[in-house]
């Protein structure tokens, strides 16, 4: 059975998970299109891993709907097209790297010829071609992460979940993961990336979803968001309190500290209009300094806010 090609790679509707009284995921509504690299961001304990586990059928949702490549999360046939690198992954340490991939290839139902072709190729891709016959018990954490990544790509998946794929990796390893994710995108694979390393997400993802207390609080096109969220610092002459209210028309979070005023605007196109408006109000403008926010700053702002933004 093949999955429905027109459906999104991932679609969830108010997905919930409760463990006793503790709500791990409060109502996840999300849509990830096919072929995109989607970053899943949130503070520790926000419910990211539980959400991924629900999508993969490891954990049963308390309520809500989810579809993976058009099929319910527990559908075992759909898993032929899904790859997964777990967060706290441990593999059987008594297996050699090539044996480990062979066992997982068998579990994917791959014929022997395909396994023999794929395994050396993937070991080379993750830089472990010389360690194929070493036992996993002798591997460092970074090497295990690499072989785990190879395992997640073994079946040439159409959707791959990477839960903290760069934890334990050195800079070269992180770069390798970045390159692999890019290569997957070029091949039309959907990548669902859960990572704490925002710099990684910034350079690899098309879109990001911010999750907080088990809810998606914002989903945004990453590049547009990074360009769009701009902090503006103003140094002004004397002004009335009503002046600050007037500045609200250009952005949000207007704050004053003496003659310093800061606000956040969407895009730099508004800067000339702000300057003109200030001058028109009769307020002296000594400096206007725009500063683009990094994803980290946006992350802190988004997950630091209460309530659902989008």
């Amino acid at each position, binding site marked *: 059975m093949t999955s429905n090609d027109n459906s999104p790679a991932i679609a969830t509707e108010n997905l919930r998970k409760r463990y006793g009284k503790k709500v791990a995921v409060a109502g996840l509504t999300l849509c990830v299109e096919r072929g995109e690299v989607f970053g899943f961001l949130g503070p520790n304990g926000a419910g990211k891993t539980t959400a991924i*586990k629900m999508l*993969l*059928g*490891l*954990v*049963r949702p308390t309520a809500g709907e989810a579809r993976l490549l058009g099929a319910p999360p527990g559908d*075992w*046939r*759909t*898993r*032929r097209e*899904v790859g*997964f690198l*777990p967060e*706290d*992954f*441990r*593999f*059987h340490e*008594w*297996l050699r790297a090539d044996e480990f991939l062979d*066992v*997982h290839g*068998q*579990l*994917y*139902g791959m014929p022997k010829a395909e396994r023999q072709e794929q395994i050396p190729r993937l070991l080379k891709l993750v830089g472990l071609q010389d360690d194929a016959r070493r036992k996993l018990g002798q591997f460092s954490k970074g090497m295990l992460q690499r072989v*785990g990544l190879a*395992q997640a790509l073994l079946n040439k998946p159409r959707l791959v979940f990477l839960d903290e794929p760069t934890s334990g990796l050195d800079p070269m390893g992180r770069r390798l993961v970045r390159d692999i994710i890019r290569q997957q995108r070029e091949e039309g694979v959907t990548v669902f990336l859960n990572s704490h390393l925002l710099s990684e997400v910034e350079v690899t993802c098309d879109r990001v979803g911010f999750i907080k207390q088990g809810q998606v609080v914002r989903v945004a096109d990453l590049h547009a968001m990074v360009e769009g969220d701009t902090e503006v610092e103003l140094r002004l002459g004397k002004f009335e309190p009503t002046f600050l209210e007037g500045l609200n028309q250009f952005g949000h979070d207007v704050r004053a500290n003496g003659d310093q005023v800061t606000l956040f605007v969407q895009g730099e196109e508004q800067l000339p209009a702000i300057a003109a408006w200030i001058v028109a109000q009769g307020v002296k403008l000594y400096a206007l300094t725009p500063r683009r926010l990094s994803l980290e700053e946006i992350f802190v702002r988004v997950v630091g806010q209460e309530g659902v933004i989008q």
Partner: protein
Amino acid sequence: MSILTIARFTFREARRRRLLWLGIGLGLAFLAIFALGFYLVYDEIRRSTLIAFAGQEAQETALKLAANAFMMMGLFVVNFLVVLVSILTTVGAISGEISSHTIQAIVTKPLRRWEIILGRWLGHALMVTFYILLLTGGIILIVYLVSGLAPRALVAGLGLYVLEGIVLLTASILGGTRLSTMANGVVLFMVYGLAFIGGWVEQIASALNSQTATNIGALAGRLLPSEVLWRRASHIMAPRVSSGLDIDGPPPFLFTFGREPAPSVVLYALVYVAAMMLLAIWSFRKRDL
């Protein structure tokens, strides 16, 4: 065929972790010690019976009694080894995979959870069966080669020993779907102890004609019908020692002093295994991992 993949994996794991070779090596050492001890002691008994008993029939009966006692003692020790091996090798088969998170990369493959349970069960069942046949077959063969004494219902008896191991490992796999490895082991040995004591109570109460105590003992024994299978196996395998005297059957000092358990215990054990398997599959399917 994911079941066979998992079963092969289980077998390979036992081989790679030296469990298989250690089991076989120590099993063979056990048989070697038994063979040597039995040969020497039996030879000594043979010489002394020639002096003690006048008639040939009496001599043969005495020797058969001695050989029977040795065979049953050997099988009794093997029984405990089987209990230990069946439980200890399977107690972490599922729970260990869950606690180490290795299960996550397996369960998310295109296979159904019941295939994992059945695959694990099959792999362990084959290994335990091999182990039981090696040890019980070894004991019986040694006794036969030294004394010429052969058990009566050999195949049926061996089948019951194997069923006993399968009862234990199935219960162990069921426990592993919900309990931690240590909790599962403790629970299994406690229930085994309960069933063992139940068997005593049943036999003693039956001899004293106390129906209530018999029922209570039988009920406790059925919580884990391994000990009752061992008793039935011992009864049906015990060689005929004498045609005239009422001294057939397993030696009473091996806690098999009561009547032979009814054939229905076999059917009960088969239903028990099937029910434990279904419960294990259901429990694992519902489990958040």
